[in-house]
């Protein structure tokens, strides 16, 4: 049907999602564009409050009032989801695009058994009879590493540990064989030891099914292991994007440099952990010019006057900066 090598699986073009509150308009996503090919993993990175989760919810059409997608396109196989009706979106949710939430303790309904919550996906998206659905659920639970799966279907979420619950959430997300998984900080709420298990599990699931994934996280260390491409968000804008290898080794944007420097390095001894000074500005009334300039060591007068556009840099990188870093240069 479609030539997957030409059309990207998902293309987000100039997405604007605003929240209209009493205190002013929050421009949570303010002109974000990116593409994901079949089977690719893209990391969506930024500090909390940078609009990462809103991008995920926008793709699924789950932005609730007072939020609204103001402009832009979200193309799945070339079909625009922004203008698609709710009925079409419901077909897509869970079946073509599914989501894994941050906190496994709250993303499952405490009053429904795990089996019932899994079964719901198949009832919505398949014509299987009850027996076949149960069989599919058992197989899926086993494949995410939950033993005695048939028995566990009857259990309730509170009878599982945090890591096990996240496995259940992943099982639910994978159940209908989606083409794209949006994982919103899937390991942030978990113990460090559990984190790598869950990441390994997600990577294996994606490799086996050939699905793509958007991995939303504030943790560059996690994406650098998982992602093929990385998109860095700051204040609702893309500030840098490119291949993981290029971006981690030689970022062009000072913000990305700052994020990388704040990763605790276990191989080299460091005197102290470096942090980006300051904090994310009030997103309700952003000043003219570059949003990062107040925290940027390279900022000059031009940065306050003119907003930098996304331009091609060295290697595969694109960055929105008037004074980008050359390869090897430190901020």
């Amino acid at each position: 049907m479609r030539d997957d090598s030409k059309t990207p699986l998902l293309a987000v073009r100039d997405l604007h999602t605003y929240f209209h509150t009493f205190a002013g308009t929050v421009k949570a996503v303010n002109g974000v564009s990116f593409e994901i090919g079949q089977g690719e993993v893209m990391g969506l990175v930024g500090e909390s409050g940078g609009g990462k989760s809103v991008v995920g919810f926008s793709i699924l059409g789950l932005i609730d009032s007072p939020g609204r997608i103001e402009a832009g396109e979200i193309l799945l196989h070339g079909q625009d989801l922004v203008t698609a009706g709710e009925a079409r979106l419901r077909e897509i949710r869970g079946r073509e695009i599914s989501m894994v939430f941050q906190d496994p303790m709250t993303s499952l309904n405490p009053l429904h058994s795990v089996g019932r919550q899994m079964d719901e996906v198949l009832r919505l998206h398949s014509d299987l009879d009850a027996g076949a659905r149960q069989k599919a659920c058992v197989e899926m639970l086993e494949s995410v590493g939950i033993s005695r799966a048939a028995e566990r279907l009857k259990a309730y979420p509170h009878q599982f540990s945090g890591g096990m619950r996240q496995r259940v959430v992943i099982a639910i997300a994978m159940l209908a064989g989606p083409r794209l998984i949006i994982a919103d900080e899937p390991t942030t709420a978990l113990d460090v030891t559990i984190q790598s298990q869950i990441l390994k599990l997600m990577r294996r699931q994606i490799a086996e099914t050939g699905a793509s994934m958007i991995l939303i996280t504030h943790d560059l260390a996690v994406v650098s292991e998982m992602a093929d491409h990385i998109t860095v968000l700051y204040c609702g804008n893309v500030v840098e994007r490119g291949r993981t290898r290029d971006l981690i080794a030689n970022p062009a944007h000072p913000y990305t440099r700052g994020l990388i420097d704040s990763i605790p390095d276990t191989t080299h001894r460091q005197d102290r952990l470096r942090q980006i000074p300051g904090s994310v500005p009030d997103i309700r009334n952003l000043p003219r010019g570059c949003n990062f300039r107040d925290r940027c060591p390279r900022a000059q007068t031009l940065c306050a006057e003119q907003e930098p556009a996304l331009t091609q840099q060295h290697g595969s990188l694109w960055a929105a900066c008037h004074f980008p870093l050359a390869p090897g240069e430190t901020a």
Partner: protein
Amino acid sequence: MFAYLIKRLIQMVLVLWVVSVIVFLMMSFTGDPVFMVVPIDATDAEIAQARRLLGLDQSLLVQYWKFLTSLLQGDFGRSYVFRQPAMTLILERMPATVEMVLVAMALAIAVAIPLGVYAGANPESRISRFIMAGSLLGISLPGFWVGMVLIYLFAVHWGVFPSSGRGDTAELWGIRISLLTWDGWHHIVLPAVTLSLGTMAIILRMTRAGMMEVGRQDFMKFARAKGATRSDVLYKHGLKNALIPVVTIFGLQLGDLIAFATITETIFSWPGMGKLLIDSIYRADRPVIVVYLMLVAFIFVVINFIVDIVYTMIDPRITLK
């Protein structure tokens, strides 16, 4: 489970014992009941004899001991006014109260939960604001006054509903029940509506608050991310979670209905145990008041126990401990 039942049973007995002490003490400080049983022109000797007969000449501790032992033996005393066992008097009138309370509760739930769910699911809509203003009015109204207005409008002015009594009753297993006759239903409408308004308003507000709280939960959004419809998410995932706080107040609300039934029964001359209590208070008929309170305390304790059991059936996280 067994250990839980034993523990609950001990708790229930303890509560009833405390209630018996309080009731006994309060009653001992009220007017001298001896004058309720002797004729107006009784001599001092007759009064003293009556007092001895009632055991009122002994110390409080002895009186309480006798009170408690007779309670435990199933002897709840005799009404000074009716000269009948107080328990019999109350049990005769209990079905009338129970059926009015149950009809009122059913009415409250039937109206409050759908409206509360709607108002919680659409907090910004005009209809929701109207519902909420109405419910606030519901808890601001004196119930007895509502009853009076209903009597004036529907009984005195339009004459569509009777203003007093139970109407015809039919017997089922030896209990007289109005709900088995059309006339009985005709009579129960006004009192049940009057009684239900306060509870209706409270259940409505709890349901709405529960729906709004649950609407913010992650699992609701996760369910939508699976592709479920908005209404499926609201009713299949949200409602049960939203109703947990409603279940916890259910017992208290049933208790409130029994308590407010005393007033409603007085207004509508409904021959239940609540009206008997008020009449007994006027007549200082101490044994009836005591038995009423002990019986109602027992009912409350049992209701609370049942609510706890129901609670564990709805919420798998709660286990009986």
